[in-house]
């Protein structure tokens, strides 16, 4: 099986062949013989030529996986090559449209710092969220114009909720 794995914006071609002693996984020039067993819940033990790794793999929507490693959590996206090529074309299109800024934590909107139509620079504060007794500012990651404000002051939001469209 051939797959594309996206990690930190980089794409990796990964080939998997099931075998007797585990799966043979090829990533670029590198080949790994992987003995993988589920242990409990989302946890798997991977033994790769003697080296043992305990990882937790949690599927999110759309082929994204959260991989829990010792001391870190990474998110990667797995796609089949055809879907990937199709999406890649679409994505270029999409990147020209407005981007949505989402809440990266649940909280309450304490203050809106911008208005619709306002131009913002990357790093400008957009909104102050209060969560767990602390106030946190959400800033613009790219420059643009605030197209739409989707929340109002005092409103409670969940992590992932859209807050603004900036384009």
């Amino acid at each position, binding site marked *: 099986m051939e*797959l594309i794995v996206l990690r930190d914006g980089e794409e990796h071609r990964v080939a998997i062949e099931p075998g007797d002693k585990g799966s043979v996984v090829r990533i670029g020039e590198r080949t790994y013989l992987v003995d993988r067993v589920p242990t409990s819940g*989302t946890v798997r033990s991977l033994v790769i030529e003697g080296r043992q790794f305990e990882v*937790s793999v949690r599927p999110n929507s759309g082929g994204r*996986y959260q991989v829990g490693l010792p*001391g870190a959590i990474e998110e990667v996206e797995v796609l089949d090559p055809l879907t990937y090529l199709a999406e890649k074309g679409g994505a270029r299109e999409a990147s020209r449209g407005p981007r949505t800024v989402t809440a990266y934590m649940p*909280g309450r909107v304490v203050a809106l710092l911008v208005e619709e139509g306002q131009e913002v620079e990357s790093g400008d504060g957009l909104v102050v969220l209060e969560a*767990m007794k602390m106030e946190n500012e959400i800033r613009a990651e790219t420059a643009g114009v605030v197209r739409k404000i989707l929340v109002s002051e005092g409103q409670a939001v969940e992590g992932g909720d859209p807050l603004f469209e900036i384009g």
Partner: protein
Amino acid sequence: MKPFRKVLVANRGEIAVRVIRGLRELGIRSAVIYSDADRQGLPVMLADEAYRIGPAPSRESYLRAGAIVELAAEIEADAIHPGYGFLAENADFARLCREAEIKFIGPSPEAIAEMGSKIESRRMMIEAGVPVVPGGQDTLPTVEEAAAFAEELGYPVLLKAIAGGGGKGMRVVHTAEDLPGAYRAARSESGASFGEDSVYLEKFIEQPRHVEIQILGDEHGRVVSLGERECSLQRRHQKVVEEAPSPVVDRELRRRMGEAAVTAAVAAGYTNAGTVEFLLDQDGEFYFLEMNTRLQVEHPVTEMVTGLDLVRAQLEIAQGGEIGPEMEGIQPRGHAIEVRLYAEDPYRGFVPSPGRIERLRWPEGPGVRNDCGVYEGSEVPIHYDPMLGKLIVWAQSREQAMDRLARALAEIRIEGIRTTVPLFAALLEDADFRAGRLDIGMLDRKLAAGELQPGHELELADLPLIAAALEHAERQARYSAVPAAGGGRRPRWRQASRRESLRRGPWS
């Protein structure tokens, strides 16, 4: 004093769990309050009794002093343990308890009130002969008076606005030449900020450590010091890592700081567990900072090096027990380190990370203690302090304790929310931390300088790719078409349900 049969724990999270465990070991029935956000919390699950106190916001639940005392009376609790935070240092609450004849497990309302006032407690300490940061809150109307006082104190000094706060109107002055300029700047900034331009002077303590002394006082007039804790590792004035003993406190300094702490507590007529916080400068001089009139978050490091159980001691003292002579002059044995596990994302400026804990594995084995208030599957609510709990290790030496902590951190798994675990792993590789070179600004400086970045170096860089790709492949296989069954991409479970219906027959 009659022995307690039932105690109400007026708190939540890990400290409620800690107190419930202490009560169970003494055979005392535990009751706990909970807000709507905490009905499924670990304290409720471990307590003998649980009572709703209100909706999620603290003001409507854990801070409802009157309702809590009423509840205690209604359920016939003999005493209330306030934990830390919330009402723990609220003199009015302690007074309400006294009026309802319910024992408040802590000092008297008077001692809480006196120690709660910075000005009052500083005055009391000066009177009792406990060293405070030299200086005075008398205003200095002229630059000449300021210069004379600065000379008396010795440079460096700190100019502070009487009306001050938030660092405004504050100037560090290193030499006499710099004083006139700094004096003018401080006054004008203070005037502009607060409409009042009076300033005063304090000795400036350079890169001090935060070292605190745990004390215990019984209700028969005996007060003992149980040694120090080093709490210099703070992020924005919030303690993050604590240890005992301090890497720089020797037996003699411990004795002197302990005596000062006991003097402070005696001056306040203090009973039960308390902590006297000091700044310790680079020359080994220490200065009273404040007294915390309650059990501290970091009490376990003292427990682990002294072998004492401070919650047990609190309960025994509150029941009229006496402090035994074995607590006199106690010396630490081995070394303990505590790290506070916060639901904050150290990769993203420590933004809070509430949510559901999807996976939780504590470290176990030798020298590891887990004092936590959450479990796998529990929700970390948005309404309270983001501390999940504490991981504490003990070993024979500081070096071994750090090695053990690194091992324990490698065993921990917390998924679903982000935590400060990666920060601690990075800290254990920091040369200054390893060497015990700590001061209260160190952590903020290092973070500001981009150090301690929780960069994880994977032994196998491709690991996340391999793990996710195999997972994906397995899921594809599980849900993918079985070619013989018609060639479509029919998931296996749909096939199974089809077989099921065939077996039943269309007439079923």
